């Protein structure tokens, strides 16, 4: 029943009481974890949305100086895509009971993520060494801030990933591992999506500017 329909019912009416009595109650802890992740991702989405809006809002000022573009980010993006693909593969394998393949997928995903983070730090250093570097330029400040926040979220993900990896050797409860892998996969895909949006809008070309103009805001 959709949320809207649920809000329409009259709980005090006898006939509705019969329907309500059929509600079986709390679901399994697995569903609770999934829901918690979704709610958390909604919070993270708001966080990044606000950062993008702040970026766009600041961009609308006349004195906006765009930050230089870093080619390295393309490579980093590619690596992050690979980590998501690896996790997707781990999930596919665990669902089919191929535990070795799952382990490989998990480890590869972790490795690609570490490479991505390393690449981001490299990008930070590259930008820091350029003549354009000026800490008071909001575009540069935003670049460090946004990539930093994104990186921190990936590191948080790596903690969950580490706890999963620690459990997949020896005897383990397949259902639980399967769930952990699924949750990691959702999280990674989400952070990849966030990165693609950030990269596409803010850090390559003047796309946010174009979008704002298309919407008639600038």
């Amino acid at each position: 029943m959709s949320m809207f329909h649920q809000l329409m019912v009259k709980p005090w009416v006898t006939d509705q009481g019969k329907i309500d009595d059929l509600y079986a109650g709390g679901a399994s802890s697995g569903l609770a974890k999934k829901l918690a992740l979704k709610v958390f991702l909604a919070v993270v989405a708001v966080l990044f949305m606000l950062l993008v809006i702040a970026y766009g809002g600041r961009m609308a000022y006349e004195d906006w100086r765009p930050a230089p573009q870093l080619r390295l980010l393309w490579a980093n993006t590619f690596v992050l895509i690979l980590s998501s693909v690896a996790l997707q593969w781990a999930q596919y394998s665990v669902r089919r009971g191929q535990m070795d393949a799952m382990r490989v997928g998990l480890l590869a995903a972790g490795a690609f993520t570490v490479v991505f983070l390393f690449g981001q730090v490299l990008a930070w250093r590259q930008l820091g060494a350029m003549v354009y570097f000026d800490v008071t330029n909001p575009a540069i400040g935003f670049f460090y801030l946004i990539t930093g926040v994104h990186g921190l979220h990936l590191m948080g993900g790596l903690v969950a990933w580490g706890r999963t990896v620690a459990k997949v050797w020896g005897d383990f409860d397949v259902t639980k591992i399967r769930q952990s892998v699924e949750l990691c996969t959702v999280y990674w895909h989400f952070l990849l999506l966030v990165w693609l949006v950030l990269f596409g809008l803010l850090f390559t070309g003047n796309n946010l500017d174009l979008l704002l103009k298309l919407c008639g805001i600038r």
Partner: protein
Amino acid sequence: MDYVAHDASAYAPPAEVEEMELYHPKTFVGKYIWSQDAKIIAVQYAVTAIGIGLVALVLSWLMRLQLAFPNSFSFIDPSNYLQFVTQHGMIMVIYLLTALFLGGFGNYLIPLMVGARDMVFPYVNMVSYWVYLSAVLLLIASFFVPGGPTGAGWTLYPPQAILQGTPGATWGIILMLVSLALFIVGFTMGGLNYVVTVLQARTRGMTLMRMPLTIWGIFTATILALLAFPALLVSAIMMLLDATLGTSFFMPAIVSMGQQGGHAGGSPVLFQHLFWFFGHPEVYIVALPAFGIVSDLISVHARKNIFGYRMMVWAIVAIGGLSFVVWAHHMYVSGMNPYFGFFFATTTLIIAVPTAIKVYNWILTLWHGNIRLTVPMMFAIGFIFTFINGGLTGLFLGNVTVDVPLSDTMFVVAHFHMVMAIAPILVVFGAIYHWYPKITGRMLNDSLGKIHFWVTFVGSYAIYYPMHYLGFAGVPRRYYAIEGTNFIPESAQSLNVAITVAALIVGAFQVVFLYNLLWSYFRGKPSGGNPWNATTLEWQTPDTPPKHGNFGATLPVVYRWAYDYSVPGAEQDFIPQNVPPGEVTRSSART
């Protein structure tokens, strides 16, 4: 209207519901310090919040002393005064009210009222409290660093928040921002728990629309907080970077005290937008739980089902939604586009519609009710008066043309204290008097409670009613002392003295409440399991106070909504939610 029974043969067979795995601590430390039981965590939250709230109360006394008797106290200089203003506001809004309503009442009531054994993630719940406590400790620490706590006003507007000259611009502001960030992290952990518990851990038969309005209020407020706090987090981090690393997100190029600052190109208005995108929902993060709780108090103590339950739920949801599109009404004087002002004035006034629906429904619930003037009921009725008062001045301030001259005057202070300080605090008191018997197994003393109510209620009016007039007369807020102005009559000073005397009395009388809490814990009359004859699940637990796991061997099954009071045909004037239709005793003379 035959509410009593629906066809008993229509029961569904009991479904297999996975039992929750609870962590069972064996040591004292595990049970009461590093506790994973939501009920203990709730008490920890409440005690911490009330403790830090008392600090804020003392700060308000110091402010009032300065306003009534300027230049009489050597320990209050202009910097101190601004620090008191700032810390009073910040503590009351975030560290007291938000933490108490969501961390305190949320933790205690959600699992019990929806029929769950505990929050779904007890460990995360525990961590949430300890992170909150560290945020509070950091805040307290800021009083002891060089320069003291920040005095930038609770809104922490840049550029002045981090410019030299503002009290606490070196250490205080940094501790404040870090403390806020920690608070948000801690809250997010708790908030995820509240939302998921409400959505996933309700007991059999407890559909969303059978939930008490208390849970609806706390649930919706939690969602608001989860979506609004990121704005504060983002702005806190950005300001932290501006203050420490020299970025210029919010800091424009500025010449301060004859020197060119190191910043360039930042936008202070951006901070205001981010801050109020959080700040306005924050009002409803505090108000919605209060709305929910007061609905239940009124229904229980008037022995009547809440009038317009569905409407009440919709109003809560609608207010929650609308609260995200009104933020700029706090910024009418920031120089924004007049069309924006028009838009935000309109949305602001639209919020009055669902809010008014709620007020009418409370009053209609009282209408022809079997009203029992218990202490919780007195606080609930006190809330309705106060909320209407504060709400009406909100209509004034929501209009741009009226707001502009009243902006930054005492009128604003009076308005928001009525609507989001006194009104929710009255609900907090009412709720504590209502649920204390469940938490401790003993009743609070009635006479002390009534003294506490009358002094707090009448005293609050003595403080804030006159303040509206000061605002009309043009007395500005946040000023250390007003001297040499022609437009403010001398009588304003006498009014200030009167307000201060009232504030001192009201504050001091809270000792009666604290004494009552302590005394009743040891000597109070044993309450029994359900002293108010209420229907909701928390009153139907086998033990009072409820033990770990809440409901003994089996979880309750819910057969009705939360408001079966004075049901025609039933012998008793309440039918608990877990009484099956077949077991309701019918009165001999059926209506």
